[in-house]
């Protein structure tokens, strides 16, 4: 095993450069280190000016998504030992504006997420005294996979459509919409359909399938979108054949 490994890290310091550059750091190699440990080592001992986001270190918070050797990864779950002998290239996620070094801005995603109303919508709330909304394990099973999303944005970075069509609502937001659509307690599917069946919703997706491949939580956004296309098409045919029926 090599004593050290080279990290080639994208730097962008807007106050002094107009384009990102690369800087290489030689760090000690340890087989129990993930890329995030290496970045923290750089920040703590070699270069305090390096900026990146992280929080939980255990694949739950979704903050530390970056491109490692060209592939979007959670850096807290990406071991250095899988990239030997190096150098390991670390870049910010694609298609998001870069604020500084490895930090990208997610405002646009948050706006899109809010559009799909990712919360349980009831036509009428029942009073708490009547108890909770019950759900069977198999009802839970229909949407549980989509509820695992941690908003890490790897899927947006892997999706060429989200780069080519910035207005596309995108994989994670649609998967989360589907998470609520399939929840037996929810009654908001018709409201979400308005947003999701528009041009910037599901029909922008051409099923590249990369979002599912990079997802660290096995959410399968590509599956969610294709399944929703089927739902939306069925709804459309229904509204055509039964114009008098309620949607």
């Amino acid at each position, binding site marked *: 095993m090599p004593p050290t490994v080279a990290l080639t890290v994208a730097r*962008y310091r*807007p*106050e002094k450069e107009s*384009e*990102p550059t690369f800087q290489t750091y030689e760090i000690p190699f340890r087989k129990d280190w993930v890329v995030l440990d290496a970045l923290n080592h750089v920040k703590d001992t070699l270069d305090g000016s390096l900026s990146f986001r992280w929080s939980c270190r255990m694949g739950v918070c979704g903050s530390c998504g970056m491109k490692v050797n*060209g592939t979007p990864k959670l850096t807290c779950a990406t071991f250095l030992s899988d990239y030997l002998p190096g150098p390991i290239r670390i870049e910010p996620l*694609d*298609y998001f*504006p*870069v*604020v500084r070094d490895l930090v990208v*801005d997610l*405002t*646009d995603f948050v*706006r899109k997420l809010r559009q799909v109303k990712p919360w349980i919508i009831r036509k009428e709330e029942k009073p708490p005294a009547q108890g909770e909304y019950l759900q069977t394990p*198999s009802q839970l*099973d*229909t949407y549980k996979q989509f509820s695992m999303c941690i908003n890490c944005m790897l899927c947006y970075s892997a999706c*060429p459509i989200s*780069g*080519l*069509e*910035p*207005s596309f609502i995108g994989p994670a937001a649609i998967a989360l919409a589907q998470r609520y659509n399939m929840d037996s307690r929810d009654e908001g599917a018709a409201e979400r359909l308005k947003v999701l069946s*528009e*041009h*910037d919703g599901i029909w922008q997706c*051409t*099923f*590249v*399938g*990369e979002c*599912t*491949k990079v997802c660290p939580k096995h959410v*399968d956004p*590509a*599956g969610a979108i*294709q*399944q929703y*296309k*089927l739902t939306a098409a069925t709804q459309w045919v229904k509204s055509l054949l039964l114009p008098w029926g309620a949607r």
Partner: protein
Amino acid sequence: MSVEPHYTLYHPRWYRRRVSVWWWLQKRSYTGFVLRELTSVFVAFFAALSLWQLVALARGPEAYGRFLSRLGTPLFLVLDAVVFLFVLFHAITWFNLTPKAMVVRLRGKRAPDWAIVGLNYAAWLVVSGAVAFVLLRG
């Protein structure tokens, strides 16, 4: 409707990379995707060819003979080989993707992907077998 993200105005120093025209060559899976999308052109060509065949058939034996002899020219033979490869690629890639779009639940459990893909291939074999039977009978 294409709305630019509204933060753009206020942060001129944020760096935005343009997507390269060659993005689809940067990863093998992207290239595979673009090839799969391209197969639609060849599928359309095959459909047009079939329509042409029907028209020729309707015009009588002479016209159909002319149609067949045209198909036998080297140009059409090469074209047909290319079309066949793309249509095959189209069928295989889409069959393999069906379990993503189709969720079949049996007794509350999701049917495994291989079962859905397998049923598609089985149906394909049965239909192909039926067509071959009709064509090769005489």
